């Protein structure tokens, strides 16, 4: 527990530095007002836009990475679930049914990833690469490669409504993160995931169904991606099968790693990933706010990523006199 808390410190530090920069560079950054019964301001946007994609994807990705895997297919799964939900409401289904259909198919696709990895024994990067390509095709096939606009009020509300002044996605995603975190620690799932990621062979010999664990985390990652896809579609009242979620897997992986979960698997931190996602979203909005030309925007982005990396560096931390313990391999 102590280690986890200490890994959380560094992304938080990076986030605070970025926020302080904004506070100085753009005065209106922290301005939040009450408008039409909801909170309104850049900080709210960070949470709202951050919740819809990076946070959600990072949630699933955290568990996948904790088992030592990776999921490249999240963007494509977003496209599929968004498309399914949109087509369902257009076909007359209720919001609930449409969302359930989208999430169901997304979870199923995640489970397919899981089967390819845990049962067939493909390397995660390859299995999910296949899903990334084919899943995008599936989304386009379902929609005839066209945008699917819809006018279902309750579905649109999912992304644009507010609960107690907070955007619905923020409430939804923080709730999901909280419940997931709680469940993982209440049950033995968290332990099994970490054990599987740290030493799969030993875990199996200790009686853990490592195959089942992997299957479950890819299914969960699919579910999270599905929810993200539904929210993205709800946000613009249309499903965009060809482009939605494109390259967002990198954002998710970045959020997870920045949050202190090692790509090699093992110990994970959901809270860290959420902070990592917020960091990423803050960075994006900062670049918009400073009107950094899109062509050169990658450069400051690279600088911030490197800065986060350096904060994570044991070497540098040792320099600053922080005590660390190293785990012998």
């Amino acid at each position: 527990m102590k280690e986890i808390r200490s890994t959380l410190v560094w992304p938080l530090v990076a986030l605070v530095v970025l926020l302080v920069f904004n506070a100085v560079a753009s005065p209106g950054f922290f301005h939040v007002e009450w408008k039409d019964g909801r909170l309104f301001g850049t900080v709210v946007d960070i949470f709202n836009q951050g919740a819809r994609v990076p946070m959600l994807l990072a949630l699933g990705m955290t568990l996948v990475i904790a088992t030592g895997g990776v999921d490249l297919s999240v963007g494509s799964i977003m496209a599929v679930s968004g498309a399914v939900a949109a087509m369902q409401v257009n076909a007359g289904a209720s919001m609930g049914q449409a969302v359930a259909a989208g999430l169901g198919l997304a979870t199923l696709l995640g489970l397919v990833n899981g089967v390819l990895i845990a049962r067939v024994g493909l390397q995660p990067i390859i299995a999910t690469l296949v899903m990334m390509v084919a899943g995008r095709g599936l989304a386009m096939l379902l929609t005839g490669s066209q945008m699917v606009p819809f006018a279902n009020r309750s579905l649109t509300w999912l992304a644009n409504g507010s609960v107690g002044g907070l955007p619905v996605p923020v409430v939804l995603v923080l709730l999901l993160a909280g419940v997931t975190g709680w469940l993982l620690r209440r049950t033995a799932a968290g332990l099994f995931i970490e054990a599987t990621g740290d030493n799969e062979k030993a875990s199996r010999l200790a009686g853990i169904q490592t195959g089942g664990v992997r299957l479950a985390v890819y299914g969960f990652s699919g579910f999270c991606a599905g929810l993200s896809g539904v929210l993205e579609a709800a946000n613009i009242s249309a499903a965009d099968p060809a482009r939605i979620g494109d390259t967002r897997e990198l954002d998710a992986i970045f959020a997870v790693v920045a949050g202190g979960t090692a790509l090699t698997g093992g110990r994970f931190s959901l809270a860290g990933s959420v902070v990592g996602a917020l960091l990423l979203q803050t960075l994006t909005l900062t670049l918009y706010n400073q009107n950094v030309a899109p062509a050169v925007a990658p450069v400051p982005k690279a600088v911030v990523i490197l800065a986060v990396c350096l904060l994570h560096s044991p070497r540098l931390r040792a320099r600053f006199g922080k005590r660390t313990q190293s785990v012998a391999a």
Partner: protein
Amino acid sequence: KPSGSSGGGGGGSTGGKLVVGFSQIGADNPWRTAETESVKAEAAKRGIELKFSDAQGQQEAQISAIRSFIAQGVSAIILAPKVETGWDGILKEVKAAKIPVVLVDRGVTVTDPSLFATLIASDFVAEGRMAGEWLVKKSGGKAGIIQLEGTTGAAPANDRKKGFEAAIAGSPDMKVLASQTGDFKRSDGKNVMEALIKAHGAAITAVYAHNDDMAIGAIQALEAAGRQPGKDVTVVSIDGMGFAFEAIKEGKLNCTVECNPLLGPMAFDAVAKALKGEELPKQLVQEDRLFDETNAPAELPNRKY
């Protein structure tokens, strides 16, 4: 079945059917999908077998697709090039195989103009210019503008930006407050707009989006912020998709510059002529029209895409 010579060469055809290869850049937006559909539909109508290749945004993939076309011995090639440069070599190979090439969308810079038969082009710079000129007129030469750029580095984004900025350069009070990429996506258009509304607030009086999708996203963001797109914020975009016409009808979008994706008929006309050996003009520029509330409602029923 009859087989073409393995060394390639023009005039190959299967079962008496004409075979034409079409190398498309990608399938990443509705405009491009409409273009693909148009070419496919026209081929079907004329009984031509179409070899379709989707390069998923990679020039290298387009080149290898063209090489495959040569190897298969197609009769003609329609190419929607991703960028203007880098085509000399492959087009020489095509020429050596005596296969005529019809370019669609945009031109290529080549040393030898005989490397392609003709170009059926949209002039992206002109589109940007038309949008800019319209906005200058509409706003009386004074506006605080948010520009939503297309995918960074993409030719339409570069050119539409160039044309627009040239058009407003003469009006000192036309100020671009911020110019950020929305990646041609509706969702990104909305996200960017959401952020920029907070940063620039009431100073925003106009939005120029490089495509209709981003404009729709921006409109949604403006509405959510309590602004009235189409009224207190003028919204201009490019492409002329069906949903843009509807938005104009609803009074939320002010104007869209058409960029006609229905190039199929013209492209196959050109193919037919080229195969007969007719000399074609090097460039058949598409006439891109501008639609605003004055003429859009009338056009709406005619929109096929």
